[in-house]
């Protein structure tokens, strides 16, 4: 579903601030894989997701989504394949627009936007049902401006928006990091539900080791722009948080394992 071959990215190349954020990263995701991504601050996790999403062009390497090479496609064109949820709840929704309007924007991801009315009558029913499934009571506030909602509510809506048109790949960048523990758990639960229901191929960055082990069928660890550990199946299920910390120290040669334990 996703095939990343030897991609590298150096920010501010040629200056004293040059920073190699991705170093020859290769990664292949099969259809239905749910991969959690861990690693210290600055390891290159977000850069990897952003490279896939086309926020910037990579310096070398190839990115294929569902067999299509997307290297040259701009961010908005790649959006056709991707559902994205960001760390900052402000980032995923249009604050000045209603819940229904936000969903309607997402409903048209990958389609041309014409002079037809922005929300068709039949969509209201669909959105109502989807919001009801979230269990946050938002189905009765369809026209409320999203800016008036809490961070957790906004992330839940962003998740809906990311998956309203079934994405080939769902990219979650610490999407629960800004939420309080209870809300974070709720949003993760919704994430799991949607991913399972639609059999979505997913990349989820998290700083929570326990979550990284609990969710998904595969786990990768990044350090200094490289994938240093990649584990899946039974071996992954059997992992303990301590195992991961040991692995990190062993593989990165970095004893500061507290850098991994941000949450």
């Amino acid at each position, binding site marked *: 579903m996703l095939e990343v071959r030897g991609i590298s990215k150096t920010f501010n190349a040629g200056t004293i601030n040059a920073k190699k954020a991705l170093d020859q990263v290769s990664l292949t995701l099969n259809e239905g894989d749910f991969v959690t991504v861990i690693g210290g601050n600055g390891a290159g996790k977000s850069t990897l997701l952003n490279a896939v*999403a086309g926020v910037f062009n990579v310096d070398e390497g190839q990115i294929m989504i569902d067999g299509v090479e997307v290297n040259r496609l*701009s*961010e*908005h*064109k790649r*959006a*056709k394949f*991707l559902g*994205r949820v*960001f760390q900052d709840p*402000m*980032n*995923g*929704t*249009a*604050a*000045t*627009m209603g819940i229904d*309007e936000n969903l*309607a*924007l*997402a409903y*048209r*991801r*990958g*389609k041309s*936007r*014409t*002079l*037809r*009315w*922005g929300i068709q009558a039949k969509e209201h029913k669909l959105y109502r049902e989807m919001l009801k499934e979230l269990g946050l009571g938002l189905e009765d506030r369809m026209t409320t401006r999203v800016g008036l909602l809490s961070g957790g509510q906004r992330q839940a809506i962003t998740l809906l*928006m*990311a998956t309203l048109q079934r994405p080939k790949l769902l990219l979650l960048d610490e999407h629960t990091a800004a939420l309080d523990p209870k809300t974070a758990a709720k949003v993760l639960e919704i994430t799991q539900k949607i991913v399972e229901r639609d059999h979505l191929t997913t990349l989820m960055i998290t700083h929570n080791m326990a979550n990284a082990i609990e969710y998904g069928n595969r786990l990768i660890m990044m350090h200094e722009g490289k994938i240093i550990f990649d584990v899946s199946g039974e071996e992954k299920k059997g992992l303990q948080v301590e195992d991961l910390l040991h692995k990190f120290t062993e593989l990165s040669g970095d004893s500061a394992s507290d850098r991994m334990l941000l949450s």
Partner: protein
Amino acid sequence: MSIISLLGALPGSIAQGIIWGIMALGVYITYKVLDLADLTVDGSLCTGGAVAAMLIVNGMNPLLSLLFAFIAGMAAGFITGFIHTKMGIPAILAGILTQLALYSINMRIMGRATQALSVDEYNLIVSLRYINKSILIGLIFAVVIILVSYWFFGTELGSSIRATGSNLNMSRAQGINTDRTKIIGLVLSNGLVALAGGLYAMFQGNADINMGRGAIVIGLAAVIIGEVIFGKIFRNFALKLASIVIGSVIYYVVIAIVIQLGLSTTDLKLFSAVIVAVALSIPYLKNRYFSKGGSKNA
């Protein structure tokens, strides 16, 4: 001051306010909907006036000339949009560049700094001579533009323009070509500004190379006055647009009053700048005032 002469000046101010209100609708599209400060308007207003005036003196129907004024303004907006989105120049600078270039172009269009348009010679649709008729025609234009805008910004395309102004990241993540939506917004905005320029040239009886100087400030004043006064009651998009035109009328009525009070016309720019600075700071000051009050009550 003389109340009588003020009352005599009021209808003219209202007509002028409505025409500039149409200009302010254009400013609203960039400043509020797209969240861009576009300074092209100081040039494109004159472009509209120049195009309409030259076409009229060469025999075109004045109403039809406005269509070409509109198109000329759209072209100016396209240039700004293009150099902003495709050449990576910040929007405010892109607008300044286009505005500067338009000075030369506007001179080329007119061949001189002022092109007279006599209401005796041409069948102008608005004029200082017929103020009541001008108010009516201006209102018809404003209402039609507001209704069309209401429809347009409710469509899929229009919604994607609103989304672009609201959240650029989210828009791209949802597959919106934000370069395109910004260009479309700038094109429509400057089209409206130039249309207003065409109307204003007829109204004042000439197109003048300086007619657009400070237009952005007047547009912002109208947008902000409308918002400050009606923001709380008008939630509907069409009513918000209407409040801008009303804001523009209020602005020109206030100008008429201060002129009656003895302010010289050359002091008007200073006065306008002060009004806008004050109006722009009101939301901020209000916020501070209310948040303090809130914490006291809590």
